């Protein structure tokens, strides 16, 4: 539904208006600025767009960037799913869901397939996402080059001039020291053949999902005040060498103890009583569907 | 080939309050291509000065040094640019000084090989052979080929000096007392080598402390006074 329609139809969903806040908690001017920043980010894939990050009723470091994007885009007819480390039931995810429902009146779901907007911390859902869906990722540290260069002025210059030799040097040194690239999450990628980007602390497992996807990926860093994006059908290539290629986590011989999946990212859990290790799907929604396929 | 015209050199020593020293005055002579001019005269008369002016180690105060360069045509060495003088030194003009400029960590063989390689562009093996051959003729024992000349005797250093200057067959060769520290046998070898060079067309200007020796090799003698 377009904004004009919503206004014309007497603002359905407006009853979700606690304590006099506008729809979606943020005022229209703020949302519009965030949307402008998002458009700029989409126009320059992988480029970190600085924006005026608003105060949220959640502390910095708990997903305020992701929340601002979600609130700026959400419409009353959207269906929202929020996950934290793949789980719909974590404290963080639940609190965010309750907050957005309160200020926007949207329907909430744990079914990836049914959602139109998915906000996530540090995981991408196992189910392939569609062109009509948007994934909003919460980002703690947007700067991929921070590991090799502490100065913000210098990293901006490096991005502007595509002067990435020090990042590649960092990977070379890893290979010299450890025989392989040791980065496990925040694995640097080249977007659209131009910018090196930090895909947020998703595991390596999820990085290939970004490449030439149907879905729009939006990245929000509230504390650091940056927004960046990967539009659909954009190339996203993990940094690798010809003779030391990128590889994902190896779960050979392991399966989810709950649903039996062998093709999802697994969390390792130490069994406190019996000893030994158990593995469970990190993506709880995916696991649920496999266990109770009829109940959704 | 080379014609020196009223060459004058004086030094102005600023650190001694501008004291002037005359080194040579209005020197004029000509050397035809393939000729050998000897410079004679008492010590301090300016013989070395003349050679150094030609080689451009000294900047002439006035006068001209006209030289027929294979690369640049007829030029005046006194006023030529630094770069062009270097080109002439690299390809055409050689200089045997009284003292060997010792370069650390370069063996005697390498010292002689280097100019052959850079100027004549032969292979390493060919250059090595020619260098070794020259050193042998000049009676440098082969066990010294890999040694560093800094520790050699004066005579040995001088012979290496000569080998280095003649190895690449310059068109014009300037010699400043090339046989000063050599024994009779070595002197003869040097003279033979110079004679061979002359037969290949090299023009020479030389200072010899031994007048008799000089008169025996030079076509003409110019007295510097």
């Amino acid at each position, binding site marked *: 539904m377009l904004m004009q329609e919503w206004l014309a139809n007497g603002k359905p969903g407006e009853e979700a208006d606690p304590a006099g806040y506008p729809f979606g908690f943020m005022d229209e001017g703020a949302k519009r600025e965030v949307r402008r920043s998002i458009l700029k980010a989409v126009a320059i894939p992988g480029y970190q767009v600085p924006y005026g990050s608003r105060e949220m009723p959640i502390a910095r470091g708990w997903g305020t960037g992701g929340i601002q994007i979600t609130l700026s885009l959400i419409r009353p007819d959207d269906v929202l799913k929020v996950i934290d480390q793949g789980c719909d039931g974590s404290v963080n995810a639940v609190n965010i869901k309750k907050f957005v429902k309160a200020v926007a009146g949207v329907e909430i779901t744990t079914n990836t397939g049914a959602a139109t907007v998915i906000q996530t911390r540090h995981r991408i859902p196992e189910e392939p996402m569609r062109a009509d869906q948007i994934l909003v990722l919460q980002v703690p540290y947007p700067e991929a080059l921070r590991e090799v260069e502490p100065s913000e002025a210098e990293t901006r210059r490096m991005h*502007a001039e595509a*002067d990435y030799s020090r990042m590649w040097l960092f990977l070379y040194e890893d*290979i010299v020291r450890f025989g392989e690239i040791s980065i496990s999450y925040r694995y640097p990628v080249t977007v659209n053949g131009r910018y090196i980007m930090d895909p947020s602390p998703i595991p390596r497992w999820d990085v290939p999902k970004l490449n030439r996807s149907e879905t729009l990926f939006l990245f929000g860093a509230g504390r650091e005040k940056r927004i960046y994006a990967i539009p659909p059908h954009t190339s996203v290539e993990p940094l690798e060498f010809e003779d030391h290629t990128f590889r994902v986590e190896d779960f050979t011989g392991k399966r989810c103890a709950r649903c039996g999946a062998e093709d999802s990212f697994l969390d390792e859990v130490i069994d406190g009583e019996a000893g030994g290790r158990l593995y469970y799907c990190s993506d709880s929604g995916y696991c649920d569907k496999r266990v109770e396929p009829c109940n959704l | 080939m080379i014609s020196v015209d009223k060459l004058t050199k004086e030094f102005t020593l600023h650190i001694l309050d501008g004291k002037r020293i005359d080194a040579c005055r209005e020197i004029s002579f000509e050397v035809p291509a393939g000729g050998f001019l000897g410079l004679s005269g008492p010590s301090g008369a300016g013989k070395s000065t003349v050679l150094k002016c030609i080689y451009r180690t000294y900047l002439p105060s006035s006068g001209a040094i006209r030289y027929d360069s294979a690369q640049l045509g007829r030029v005046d060495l006194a006023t030529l640019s*630094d*770069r062009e003088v270097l*080109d002439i030194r690299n390809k055409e003009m050689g200089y045997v000084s009284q003292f060997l400029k010792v*370069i*650390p960590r370069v063996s005697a063989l390498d010292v002689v090989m280097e100019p052959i390689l850079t100027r004549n562009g032969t292979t390493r093996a060919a250059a090595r052979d020619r260098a070794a051959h020259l050193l042998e003729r000049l009676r440098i024992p082969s066990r010294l080929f890999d040694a560093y000349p800094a520790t050699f005797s004066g005579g040995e250093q001088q012979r290496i000096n000569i080998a280095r200057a003649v190895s690449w067959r310059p068109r014009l060769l300037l010699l400043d007392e090339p046989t000063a520290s050599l024994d009779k046998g070595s002197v003869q070898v040097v003279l033979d080598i110079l004679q061979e060079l002359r037969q290949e067309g090299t023009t020479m200007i030389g200072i010899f402390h031994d007048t008799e020796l000089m008169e025996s090799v030079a076509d003409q003698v110019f007295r510097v006074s």
Partner: protein
Amino acid sequence: MQPVIKVRGLAKRFGAGCDRCASSTGPEAETNQCPHCGAVLACNDVSFDLFPNEALGIVGESGSGKSTLVRLLHFEWDACAGTVELARTPQLAHLPEFFTEGEAYSRNLLGLSQFQKRQVRNALMGIVYQNPYLGLRMQVSAGGNVAERLLGAGWRNIAAIRSRAAELLARTEIPVARMDEPPRNFSGGMQQRVQIAKALSNKPLILFLDEVTTGLDLSVQARVLDLIRSLREEFQLSLLVVSHDLGVINLLCHRTMVMKYGRVVEAGLTDQILQDPQHRYTQLLVASQL
């Protein structure tokens, strides 16, 4: 033969400057600080040509402006005046925008943006500093230091990168077994040689050597200088050798410039500078040599 690089009227001033700065500073005034406005003319009106396959020495004492000159030519600092033009060389073929059609020499490089200057620098120049901490990343392995330029140029095969780095380190007499160690563990002479290997990794046309053996033991110095000599010959480099040591200049350089208080007081063939110095200051310098 045409010069590779033509420098005319290069100047660097620290401070606001006034119209009396140039006439109030220099060797006659015995200062490089303007007595009227306090600005320092680190170098003024420096002009020279650098030819292919030659070594040009720049000799002077502290405050002469010789290191400033290197910083300006290496595009680390911005000049206040002057032109720097490069000949059309194959190394610059991928940067045609710096040349005007039909001209043998580039536009004034001092007018380029920082990005463009960096492009020229990466394509053409290498530098070795007196202090290895300026030229090397001490936390990175020796091989990594050499590899950085290669990685920046788009090399993406580890085996090939390591092979090239090992080749350069071997050529500068660093034991290849130590290529994965950080240079902070190396001796001073070895650190300088790693710097040289790093400077050569992108096959530069011009190599700047800024007091590279100052402070090293004599035997170490000899080894480094000899290495530089043989590398210059082998790779047909143009060297700009900055030193206060006439012995180093004598060993390496065919031509030399003498600087004092920011100005070039004399320039000529090295043997002429040493045996027939013309300027008062050059004569003093030569007479002071041990």
